[in-house]
């Protein structure tokens, strides 16, 4: 830099004011992204209202649809099914976070016109996206809690939870995998225009093939192999095993090991894919293109 007094003062300001510690940097980026998203969210009352109204309604919609296939008298097996669906429903809400919460974050910034600002800053883009994930996860937890209270109050039952610690561990693996998956999707929004179509296909594929709403055993044989190749099948299976004592697809310890490897692999792949796609977008000059 130059040798003028103004330059030295500016440099001193920069050195003193910029956080040089990496963890502090990352923490600051994460907090900024989280707060920005939270503020925007609460200032769009429609979002709050919409999610809190529609979430329990979706559950009742599926539950009523299944009623047609149920015996008229309630049995224990019916309650077990109810718990099965309800947990499946929770898994679906969390999955939709990855697809439409994390995945759409780039598209949202594009539409708002702030995407270029996002890429101009000397930050790790992944941290910003994870900051957004944190806000979406927080609102998901609130919505799930609220829906659980309504559903189980109406059914006059307590929610089932056999092993909370294992459930939380499995949930942690699920979320790590989801973040990786979400990063991959966020990258895709910079490449493809028909993002919504792909999201819908993936979302429904998830609902049908991963055992979220019915066990993988119900799926006919050729398609069942597809289910067994999807990492989410194992995360869901483990969470359900911890909550409802259902049996696991693989022996439990092997399934936990498999799920752990899959979760961190997905995170790494998502991270690498996102960065690669961003690099290509810079070469093609398409960062702000919609």
């Amino acid at each position: 830099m130059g040798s003028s007094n103004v330059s030295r003062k500016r440099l001193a300001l920069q050195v003193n004011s910029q956080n040089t510690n990496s963890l502090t940097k990352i923490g600051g980026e994460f907090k900024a992204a989280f707060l920005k998203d939270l503020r925007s969210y609460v200032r769009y009352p429609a979002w709050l209202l919409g999610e809190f109204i529609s979430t329990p309604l979706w559950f009742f919609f599926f539950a009523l649809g299944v009623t047609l296939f149920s015996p008229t008298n309630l049995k224990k097996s019916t309650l077990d099914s109810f718990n099965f669906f309800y947990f499946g429903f929770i898994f679906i809400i969390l999955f939709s976070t990855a697809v439409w919460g994390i995945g759409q974050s780039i598209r949202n910034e594009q539409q708002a016109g702030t995407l270029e600002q996002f890429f101009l800053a000397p930050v790790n883009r992944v941290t910003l996206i994870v900051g957004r994930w944190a806000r979406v996860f927080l609102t998901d937890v609130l919505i799930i809690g609220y829906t659980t209270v309504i559903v189980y109050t109406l059914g006059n039952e307590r929610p089932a939870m056999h092993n909370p610690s294992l459930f939380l561990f499995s949930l942690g693996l699920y979320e790590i995998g989801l973040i990786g998956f979400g990063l991959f999707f966020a990258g895709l929004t910079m490449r493809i225009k028909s993002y919504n179509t792909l999201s819908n296909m993936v979302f429904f594929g998830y609902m049908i093939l991963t055992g979220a709403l019915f066990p993988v055993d119900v799926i006919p044989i050729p398609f069942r192999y597809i289910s067994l190749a999807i990492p989410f099948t194992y995360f869901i299976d483990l969470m359900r095993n911890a909550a409802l004592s259902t049996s696991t697809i693989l022996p439990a310890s092997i399934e936990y090991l498999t799920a752990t490897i899959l979760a961190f692999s997905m995170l790494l792949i998502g991270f690498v894919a996102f960065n690669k796609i961003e690099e290509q977008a810079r070469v093609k000059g398409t960062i702000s293109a919609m």
Partner: protein
Amino acid sequence: MKHYARKPGSFVIYLALPFMFTLLIFGMGRFVSGGNAATYFAARTGTANILVYEMIGSAVWMTSWVVVEDVGVSLRNEQISGTLEQNFLAPIDRATLLVGMSLADIVITTVIFLISVGVAVIVTMPADFAGLLQAYLVLLVGLFPLFGVCFVFSGIIIRFKEPYVFVQIVNVLFAVLTGTYYPVALLPLWVQFLSGLLPQTYVIEDMRQIILANQNLVSLYGNIFVLVALALTYPTVGYGIFKRIEKKAGVTGEFSKY
């Protein structure tokens, strides 16, 4: 129509969703009751033809989804890209603008009907083209009151800005209240009253009666009369509400906000 030509993926989704939802519901049912699932279904609905029963509900739900989303999302996209103001500056009747958006949906509706209900009927039942035609007419008539609902929806979008959330609420409300995958009679009485206000409730019921219970437009005259009455009143009332919201939006400057 140009939108669907340039983004065929949306179109594919609208065709695939009826099948996916039906598959989901049936899979869940099979899990609960195993081999007895079909028996319980027949006892509750009066028909053993699960596929056609569910596909009718799916198709009608999907057409309302298309109409609601098209109106809501296209307006929102215009708002974001800044062209909403340009559209509202033009010396045209807003109804023309809204109806123009909606008319393309008649074509989409027809295709959805043919692909989902048409195929399900041809595959599982003796061919009844007269029944299919009558069911299709009921579906078309049901679009007009739906446009009226969407006019109100457009106004809400202009005011609140976030169509995706409102589209979701409206879609799930339609799904729950109109008997998409179950008879409306399963719902509590006060909820059935709300169902009676929605045109799609009559559409779904009538289409099922025509295709699965050998009824026709004449024998269902009561429901048809209600549907026609809704088709005449809802668009007018809906447009009136839209104009009021539009006037308010002009005062608060909502057209250029996003």
